[in-house]
């Protein structure tokens, strides 16, 4: 117990002595881990969305506006006979209008000025296999009276490419910042050992064990890393709330995207572990030169 008290006291003294360096270390750990955790959170959100699409990948075939019932029926029959189509659903102009009203609920003027007859009829199609989506899209796109075919995959793919690049950019930024926070912690520990070199010399001389000499410095690194990570945890949590709010106002494609508390909790825990790890690794590197001499 007295040994714990000793370690706690020494760690606190050392942290206070290097206050500015300590703060710099904490801030860089916090920012880098927030970037890291933030991008993981966004990825998790997107994953939830794509996960849903995977269960029943859909493509939607839009007819030209004003196609006759007969023209629509041609496509209907063809879909019914298509062995690559598992199920499909015909959306009439009334159905389209219902969706339209929901999507543009916040623009009453637009809804007001739009009549069901202005909207295209469409077919929502679930293929036998997800891989067939593109094949089906290509086949139906050039059919008579078909205006366009939208596949979930196209939109998702575009989004995934975007998030992949964003993810890459954020993770490289986060790694650079993580590296610099590591250097800052190494430097703080070096300064701390230098400030206390006479004490360390005496400790080694009278036979203090290596661990006894090291622990206060390692605790110092750990505290820095953990506090920084704690801030990052808070920021990730705040980001989760912001994303959740943004998504709750969406009724379009993004409505399948979700962010959960367990995502934020898991990522936050990871962030804490990395932060503490960086602190300890930084202090070990910082101590090596001085103590093993």
């Amino acid at each position, binding site marked *: 117990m007295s040994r714990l008290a000793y370690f706690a006291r020494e760690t606190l003294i050392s942290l206070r002595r290097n206050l500015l360096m300590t703060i710099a270390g904490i801030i860089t750990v916090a920012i880098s881990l927030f970037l890291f955790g933030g991008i993981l959170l966004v990825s998790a959100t997107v994953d939830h969305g794509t996960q849903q699409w995977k269960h029943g990948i859909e493509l939607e075939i839009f007819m030209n506006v004003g196609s006759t019932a007969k023209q629509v029926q041609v496509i209907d029959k063809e879909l019914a006979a298509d062995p690559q189509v598992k199920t499909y659903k015909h959306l009439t102009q009334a159905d389209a209008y219902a969706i339209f009203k929901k999507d543009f609920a916040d623009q009453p003027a637009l809804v007001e000025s739009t009549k069901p007859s202005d909207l295209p009829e469409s077919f929502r199609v679930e293929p036998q296999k997800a891989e067939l989506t593109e094949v089906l899209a290509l086949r139906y796109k050039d059919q008579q009276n078909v205006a366009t075919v939208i596949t979930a995959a196209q939109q998702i793919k575009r989004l995934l490419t975007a998030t992949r690049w964003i993810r890459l950019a954020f993770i490289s930024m986060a790694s650079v910042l993580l590296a610099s926070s590591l250097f800052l912690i190494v430097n703080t520990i070096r300064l701390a050992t230098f400030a206390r070199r006479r004490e360390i*010399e*005496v400790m*080694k001389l*009278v*036979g203090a064990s*290596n661990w006894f000499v090291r622990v206060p410095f390692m605790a110092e690194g750990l505290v820095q890393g953990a506090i920084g990570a704690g801030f990052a945890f808070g920021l990730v949590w705040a980001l989760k709330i912001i994303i959740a709010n943004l998504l709750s106002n969406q009724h379009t494609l993004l409505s399948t995207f979700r962010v959960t508390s367990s995502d934020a909790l898991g990522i936050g825990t990871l962030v804490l572990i990395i932060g503490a790890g960086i602190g300890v690794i930084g202090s070990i590197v910082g101590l090596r030169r001085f103590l093993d001499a």
Partner: protein
Amino acid sequence: MIRFEDVTKAYKGDVVALRELSLEILKGEFVFLVGPSGSGKSTFLKLLLRDEVATGGKVMVAGRDIGRLGSWKVPQLRRNIGCVFQDFKLLANKTVYENVAFALEVIGRPKHIVRTQVPQILDLVGLTKKADNFPTELSGGEQQRVSIARAFVNRPLILLADEPTGNLDPATTVGIMRLLDRINRTGTTVVMATHDQRIVDAMRRRVVELDHGSLVRDQVRGVYGVGS
């Protein structure tokens, strides 16, 4: 207690500090280590502390070859060897009491041991009244007494002293030597490297003389220099 067997220590760049040195120091002996600067005295002490490792031969302390000690066992060795230096190596931000207590605290001795041992040892070195003073408030002789108290508070088997009187005036030196003699009489082996001719001649203890890393003299009741 201490045995050197054909010990050679060479540093980088072909500097040979010790050359096939063989020597035995028994438990409870008081040995002066003399010789000019660069003769290998400091290397001798550093090898005993495992601050350096011999490049040839064996250094035995209490029957163990300390050159083959794992680095995690070095602290254990050092707990059995007290050490005193010319520059005292006291911590300026700690009081006399705290400086001595520090040596016990950092090897994990419980509080009640610290509370009984430190006043005892301060009494031995005659600094009870200065317990709450800081090192800068003490004379050189007093500071050296604190450092001896720190080296001896853990009751080591061996006390090494590297020029302990190098910074002190003759009168103060006598007091320090009396203290070391007293510690020696408790059964502690004392090895003292020194340039101080007068104290070696006055004490008439075993003298080991090194020159260019070789043993040139080992005399039971010796003086500083041959013919002086």
